[in-house]
């Protein structure tokens, strides 16, 4: 005990250092003699030895503390050991750390040159890392804004804004990719800058009527509102710009003597941006997933998490603190109630179970009916819109705009109504609160993403044709001579409409509501109150927009730029709306579970975006009248064509990889590895459980023996041994 001298120590530290085996906390209640034995137990000694040999941090701290307080210098055989922890990670006050540092520097005299060099180099390396991290954090976009949001509204809402920032960066990178590899060469070679030129090879083995494509381009005198309409719908003068697929009707670009294969670049850049998004999202979610997986208890149920990590120390506002207290109380009460409910459920009778299950099946049928209703209405709206959008002369300008935007309007209303219906229905299904929230969220996600799928499906049903004439082209050449541009225009309209709706909701719903609640003192209005910042709704909104961007970028290469600007503006709109028109959430979502959930849904959106893109690229014939893939049957066909120009060896290798003889065994082996890791994880978990039980029984044994020992000593009446 002598190495733990006086000094400003709390009893907690002494106890913790003394009781090496952590099973001996109640030793204080026993007499001194049994405690003395603890130091002599072989298990304790070997733990000490093992920890000292491995340079355990705790042991070092014990030593450091003792040395700092007692100001004794022991020449350590391995003087470099203590310098291995950076000073700033020691759990002592600044004054003590200063003493330790002075002692360390004094000890340098005792250590050999090699240890000294090792220590100083590791110290400077750590300091360099710290400086780099500091520098890189300065360059983060919106660092100060997100910090202040976190301070005022907590970490749950802050995670939404960091997610938004992530999407801005992702879209910006996508734009850079598409711009530099597709748009820039096309523009340069079209205008002949830098001694470049482009070649357009006319297709040779297709019917001539397939290749007729005359976009209107607004020649001659047009009304002003035509420009506005074109801006909003992507037709007219926008159709022939760089924005859409139709512009890139170039088969190769020549820069002096270098040949730039633009079609191949177009396809490969598409794959590149999809791969970039995929990898980046997975990388970001791996860290969050690790936390999620650490223990598989339901996150909503972990009491220790709520009690020890419940208070958000960032809160500075007294009102926010009051609300946080209330929400914590509410959360704890609901969870305790849920636990009691769970016990009640476990005691349900057979009759009750039958009733509940049949009710759930019935409600799921209603949900499916609602979904089918949404899908059918989207299908009809798309078909109607496509059929009637070219009748400009018959209907007026506004009506035509309405018809053009009909699919977007229907999708947005479906996205708005369906979640309300789901949250109404789920109350009848009698699930636990946590599961209710999850199930509603899953249903809403499904609605939003499936709506986009249905839209695309209806578009393709329009493009597809049946009679023999257009079978030669493979698509409906009369209505859609350049069908990729048409799809691009739909995606463009969806994106713009989504953006306008967000702005409109903020301007025309949130702010008037706030004004009403502030200045009108009617009971009804006050009860209606301000709206909360619904994190999941907002996140689903932006994920929906991002999915559209992913699908649409193949058909409209500059869409990521529009998406970047859109999310950039949305950040400020949401921030202003949050600060001025929202009340704090009563049931806050925890930051940890939300981070992982957002990324998981985003990943689902990305994978869902693969499907329509895959179908367009590989199955549907590319249009013969425009675009870089005129000479090929499908957009994908350029890849086999390019491979045929490779050397024979490489060709054989690539064919080998793509064949079934390779793919099937590869898949089987990958599955084997996956099963192995799953089994390993399961085994580890079981071992951990067993060890925990063992710990408990061991500690009980020791307590039992200690009691017996102290009894025996008392009975024998021997004087207690003085502690050495």
């Amino acid at each position, binding site marked *: 005990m002598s190495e733990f001298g006086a000094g400003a120590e709390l009893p907690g530290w002494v106890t913790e250092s003394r009781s090496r085996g952590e099973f001996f906390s109640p030793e204080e209640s026993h007499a001194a003699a049994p405690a003395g034995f603890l130091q002599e137990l072989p298990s304790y000694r070997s733990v000490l030895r093992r920890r000292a040999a491995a340079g355990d941090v705790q042991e070092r701290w014990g030593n450091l503390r003792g040395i700092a307080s007692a100001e004794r210098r022991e020449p350590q055989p391995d003087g470099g050991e203590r310098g291995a922890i950076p000073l700033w990670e020691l759990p002592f006050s600044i004054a003590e750390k200063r003493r330790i540092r002075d002692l360390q520097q004094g000890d340098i005299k005792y250590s050999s040159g090699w240890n000294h060099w090792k220590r100083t180099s590791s110290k400077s390396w750590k300091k360099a890392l710290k400086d780099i991290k500091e520098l890189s954090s300065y360059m983060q976009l919106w660092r100060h804004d997100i910090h202040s949001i976190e301070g005022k509204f907590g970490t749950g809402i802050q995670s939404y804004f960091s997610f938004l920032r992530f999407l801005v960066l992702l879209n910006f990178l996508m734009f850079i990719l598409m711009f530099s590899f597709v748009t820039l060469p096309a523009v340069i070679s079209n205008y002949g800058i830098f001694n470049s030129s482009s070649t357009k090879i006319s297709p040779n083995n297709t019917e001539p009527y397939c290749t007729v494509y005359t976009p209107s381009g607004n020649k001659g005198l047009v009304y002003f509102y035509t420009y506005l309409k074109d801006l909003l719908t992507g037709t007219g003068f926008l159709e022939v710009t760089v924005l859409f697929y139709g512009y890139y009707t170039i088969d190769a670009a020549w820069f002096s003597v270098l040949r730039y294969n633009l079609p191949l670049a177009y396809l490969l850049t598409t794959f590149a941006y999809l791969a970039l998004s995929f990898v980046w999202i997975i990388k970001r979610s791996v860290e969050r997933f690790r936390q999620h997986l650490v223990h598989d208890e339901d996150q909503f149920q972990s009491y220790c998490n709520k009690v020890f990590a419940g208070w958000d120390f960032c809160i500075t506002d007294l009102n926010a603190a009051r609300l946080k207290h209330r929400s914590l*109380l509410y959360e704890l009460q609901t969870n305790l109630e849920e636990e009691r409910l769970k016990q009640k459920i476990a005691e349900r009778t057979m009759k009750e179970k039958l009733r509940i299950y049949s009710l759930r099946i019935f409600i799921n049928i209603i949900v499916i009916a609602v979904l089918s209703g949404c899908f059918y209405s989207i299908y009809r709206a798309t078909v109607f819109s496509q059929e009637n959008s070219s009748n400009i002369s018959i209907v007026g300008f506004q009506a035509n705009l309405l018809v053009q935007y009909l699919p977007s309007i229907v999708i947005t209303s479906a996205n708005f109504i369906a979640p309300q219906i789901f949250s109404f229905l789920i109350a009848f299904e009698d699930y636990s609160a946590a599961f209710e929230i999850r199930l509603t969220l899953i249903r809403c996600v499904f609605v939003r993403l499936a709506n986009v799928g249905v839209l695309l499906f209806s578009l393709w049903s329009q493009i597809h044709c049946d009679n023999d004439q257009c079978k030669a082209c493979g698509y409906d050449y009369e209505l859609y001579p350049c069908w990729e541009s048409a799809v691009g225009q739909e995606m463009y309209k969806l994106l713009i409409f989504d953006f306008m709706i967000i702005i409109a909701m903020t301007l025309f719903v949130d702010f008037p509501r706030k004004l009403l609640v502030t200045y009108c003192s009617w009971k009804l209005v006050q009860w209606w109150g301000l709206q909360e910042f619904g994190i999941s709704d907002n996140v689903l909104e932006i994920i929906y927009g991002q999915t559209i961007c992913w699908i649409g970028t193949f058909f409209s290469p500059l869409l990521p730029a529009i998406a970047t600007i859109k999310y950039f503006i949305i950040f400020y709109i949401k921030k202003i709306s949050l600060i001025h028109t929202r009340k704090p959430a009563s049931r806050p979502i925890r930051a*940890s579970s939300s981070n992982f959930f957002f990324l998981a849904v985003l990943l689902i959106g990305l994978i869902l975006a693969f499907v329509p893109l895959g179908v367009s690229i590989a199955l549907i014939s590319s249009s013969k009248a425009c675009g870089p893939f005129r000479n090929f049957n499908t957009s994908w066909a350029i890849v086999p064509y390019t491979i045929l120009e490779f050397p024979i060896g490489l060709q054989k290798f690539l064919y080998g990889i793509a064949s079934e003889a390779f793919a099937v065994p590869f898949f089987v082996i990958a599955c084997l590895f996956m099963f192995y890791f799953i089994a390993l994880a399961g085994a580890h978990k079981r071992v951990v459980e067993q060890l925990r039980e063992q710990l408990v029984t061991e*500690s009980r044994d020791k307590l039992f023996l200690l009691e017996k020992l102290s009894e025996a000593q008392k009975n024998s009446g021997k004087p207690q041994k003085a502690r050495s």
Partner: protein
Amino acid sequence: MGGSSSLLPQEALGEYQELTFLNKQEILLAAPAPGLPRALPHGGAVVFASSSAYKRFSELLPREQRENACSVRVPKSQILTLPELRANPFQHRICHVFSTSEDGDDSMSFEDFLDMLSVFSDAATSDIKSRYAFRIFDFDDDGVLDGKDLEKLVNCLTGQGEEARLSSIEMEQLIRNVLEESDIDKDGTINLSEFQHVISRSPDFVSSFKIVL
């Protein structure tokens, strides 16, 4: 802001950077304030503070003591006026844990203040945070968290006032659940290792145990 040219010597700044998790900006902002630099007696270069830790700390002192802010202790009542601590239910425990005052009056010097900011900063490791969290939650300072500590902790969380408390049945149920999840050796208390173990499984701890100036 204004013309308060409080001085923090360069070496002290470097030393504090080395001994804490804070970076230079968080300790002070090195933008020169209006006014000429004055040479200290020992000739060290001086840096002006215009924001963050040093400035906030010296604002807590009465005017005449601001010159030597580094060596003065601020009484607890003043510390509790900081907005970051004002709304915090653990304010008294925080002052108690970080204060190195021998009188036991929980007054804090500038170094204690820096200590506190360092532990609560973004860059601090979860190990450090969990150690200090354990000390803060240990209301009776006996080195373990027992039922009484947990009860006081939960009462702090739910707020002041009679209607903001859990009923005794709920409190018992809650404490039982917490101990079931975290008490490995089943002795009815949570010691530091058990606390750190349960914190390592808690994903929200690092993001909520944070104070940003």
